[in-house]
């Protein structure tokens, strides 16, 4: 039991520790990544009816241009197809709520109708704005079936702002941010539908 032998043991222990950890990490990384992809797609795709697509939308990311919108930023987009026909576009949108960024996933069908909206990330006030994260979410379901022209531009706002939509109780800023982000996404889809799905919803 000397200083030298202790140092040698420590050195051995350190290299053994690093080696074993690296080996375990190396052998488990592919399985963990595959599982992560499965969880991600389950989380993202429950917006779409499961029989409405037959591709792997997350492996078909869309190329988006001019992603800085009026009230929000598009972080990415995915295309869901069935039998080769575009069925829906999923847009990942980020807007600023009351306490920070809110990430939304907005699903729009080929005719420009909203299929659903869900929040992916938020840091709003617990019990108030944070209710946006609840899933299924009655307030967000209220937007399903709406489109850019249904209601018209001035209807895309809270009732408090002379619009058509209710707000989450006690969370005006959060609600307003989400409505504006959804409106932005619908407008973006309308302006870029040819690029996104290869046709125009007005045809």
């Amino acid at each position, binding site marked *: 039991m000397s200083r030298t032998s202790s140092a040698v043991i420590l050195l051995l222990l350190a290299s053994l520790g690093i080696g*074993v950890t690296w080996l375990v990490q190396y052998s488990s990384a592919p399985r963990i990544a595959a599982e992560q992809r499965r969880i991600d797609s389950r989380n993202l795709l429950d917006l779409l009816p499961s029989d409405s697509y037959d591709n792997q939308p997350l492996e078909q990311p869309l190329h988006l241009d001019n992603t800085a919108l009026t009230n929000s930023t598009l972080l990415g987009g995915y295309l869901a197809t069935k039998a080769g026909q575009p069925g829906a576009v999923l847009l990942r949108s980020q807007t600023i709520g009351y306490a920070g960024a809110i990430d939304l996933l907005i699903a729009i069908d080929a005719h420009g109708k909203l299929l659903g909206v869900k929040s992916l990330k938020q840091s709003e006030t617990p019990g108030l704005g944070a209710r946006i994260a609840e899933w299924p979410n009655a307030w967000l379901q209220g937007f399903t079936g709406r489109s850019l022209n249904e209601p018209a531009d001035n209807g895309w706002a809270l009732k408090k702002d002379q619009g058509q939509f209710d707000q989450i109780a006690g969370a005006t800023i959060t609600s307003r941010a989400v409505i504006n982000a959804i409106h932005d996404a619908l407008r973006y889809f309308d302006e870029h539908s040819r690029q996104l799905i290869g046709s125009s919803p007005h045809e």
Partner: protein
Amino acid sequence: MSKSANLQNSLMLAPLIGATDSLVTALGVWLMFIVVISAFGAGMAALRSRLIPASRLLAGILLAATLTSCAELAAQVWSLQWHQHSGFYAGLIALQCVVLEYTGFFQSAWRERLRLCVLFGALMVGLGLLRELLGDEGVRLATLAPGGFILLGLLIAAWQAWPRPTPSH
């Protein structure tokens, strides 16, 4: 109660509040705690006599980090969802190993060691079960950290109020 026992117990408080919002999380963290602590104890028993006292801490840190990293990776392979839910509390087990080594836990009688592990497990599972049941009943506070503190406080109060012939301390 000595100062080092205080350190040891307050470190247990983190998973006790943070990782008991559901029964599965609590049970998993406790099982991981038992596995890592046992492997760490065995490893340190073999190393202790071969090291000068000054290098024992470093050896403990290296061993604890290796074991916890491997256990975390194994948990991710086994169930990534559980791992994401348990957050960083599983990683704190490494710190617990080092503190337990420092407080002389591994040199104490096996009865003492067993007592601590069982007590920790009973508290984790009990609190996890209680919070999950209350959460299912619609008491959302129970699933949040403040609710965990309140429930733990109530449990301790009940324990103190329980009539016992010989008080433990």
